[in-house]
């Protein structure tokens, strides 16, 4: 169920290499934990993001959570449709609910991230939220 065509961060973002660029989003586990997403704040085109650093905010009805970039580089596109309709993050976190597209400083950075199999193992180890 977790797509194996991309890599995953411990902060529950995904990064997918696509024609020399990297598409970034949140995982299905993340959207499930957040609940209904009602607001997304993303960097702008031209901004620099850095692997493991805060790049934006996602808010559910109950709370705000930071978004961490899974890759370093320059933002080349932002998913305005998801900003306008944050429910897309819940409905289609791996497709229509993508967040940003990055021109990576170094594509090898993706090797720091987990495979789908490793990520599934990690989230299945987690007990229910306290």
């Amino acid at each position, binding site marked *: 169920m977790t797509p194996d065509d991309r890599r995953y961060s411990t902060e529950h973002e995904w990064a997918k290499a696509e024609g020399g660029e990297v598409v970034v989003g949140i995982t299905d586990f993340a959207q499930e934990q957040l*609940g*209904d997403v*009602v*607001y997304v*704040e993303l960097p702008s085109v031209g901004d620099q993001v850095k692997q493991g650093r805060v790049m934006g*905010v996602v*808010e*559910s*009805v*109950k*709370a*705000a959570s930071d978004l961490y970039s899974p890759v370093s580089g320059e933002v080349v596109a932002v998913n305005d449709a998801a900003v306008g309709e944050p429910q897309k993050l*819940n409905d289609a976190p791996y497709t229509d609910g993508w967040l940003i597209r990055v021109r990576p400083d170094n594509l090898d950075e993706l090797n720091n991230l987990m495979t789908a199999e490793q990520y599934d193992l990690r989230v299945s180890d987690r007990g*229910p*939220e*306290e």
Partner: protein
Amino acid sequence: MSEPLRETPLHGWHVAHGARLVPFGGWSMPVQYPGGILAEHRATRAGAGLFDISHMGRVELVGPDALALLQRTTTNDVNALAVGRAQYSVLCNEAGGTLDDLIVYRLPGRYLAVVNAGGRERDLAWWREQARGLDVDLVDRTPDVAMIALQGPAAETLLQPVCNVPLDRMRYYTATRAEVCGRAVLLARTGYTGEDGFELMPASDDVVALWEAVLALTDPVAPSPAGLGARDTLRLEAGMALYGHELTDEISPLEAGLGRVVKLDKGEFVGRKALAAQQAAGLTRQLVGFEMLDAAIPRQGYPVIAGGRTVGAVTSGSFGPSVERPIGLAYVPPQLAAVGTELTVVVRGRPAPARVCARPFWPHHTKRIRAAGD
């Protein structure tokens, strides 16, 4: 706080039905079911939502001096409360700060106070202290009586076929003994959503069967189980205060806009002198509702700025699912409280424009034949 969380008699049902549980006021409570907060909120506004509110404290005051104790410790006039009626009220400290907010029900031969989950133990201790020299028994019924709320425009139509009391004649803020789905309950036409609806208090042993029986009703629409997340967005849109947010030990009911339940002329009560002095001197802050002019969502604690300086703070904020925009409540100086006043809310370090707007954000649909209890 390593004390284990308390569980309501419906805890097992919540777990079995995929609820996400969170700690609230010392209890493990469902914040949402798998359908999510937005769906639960909308179901309550459009049809009916069913809430487990057994975490609320239920305290009976029995004895010849029960009335005297309530008159001494609450701001509303309990003398004016007839049998079968309910009254929203406030417990104040000597300084006029709010110890808790509550609903007082007058039942045959006793009073019932429904208080906040997190305030129950402190309220009980406060009442025991204030009851010295009075002939009154305080009985904590929280463990043996449960409480569920059926809220929404469909509530009356849903319940009438399974209830032995004519509901079309039952007014907002009244309560009566009734049988619902074959279970004895105290039935109250009260709630915390701004919608019409009922709060049902059955024996704890009966509540799971009653809950399931109410959820099985389908005419005109099946109720949706709803958690604390929807309860919070519904009460926020209805402009209602939540203890720990709009009300604290440091905030008076006058500042919170609850002057209608503060009866300064009813006789002596704890906090009366301080409240009368505050009223005479004029308030220095008051609660306002505001809407964000962009998509940023306000949250409790965010600073409110006007004219370049911090003038207050947000007490509650969320995306309002029915009003479909971010809304909040905040304390500001009275000169900034007029509807239409432009404010700035600092959202994670970034100033975001906001505007004072009328409360409630969403119109109330309670069965208010006349102002009852307030």
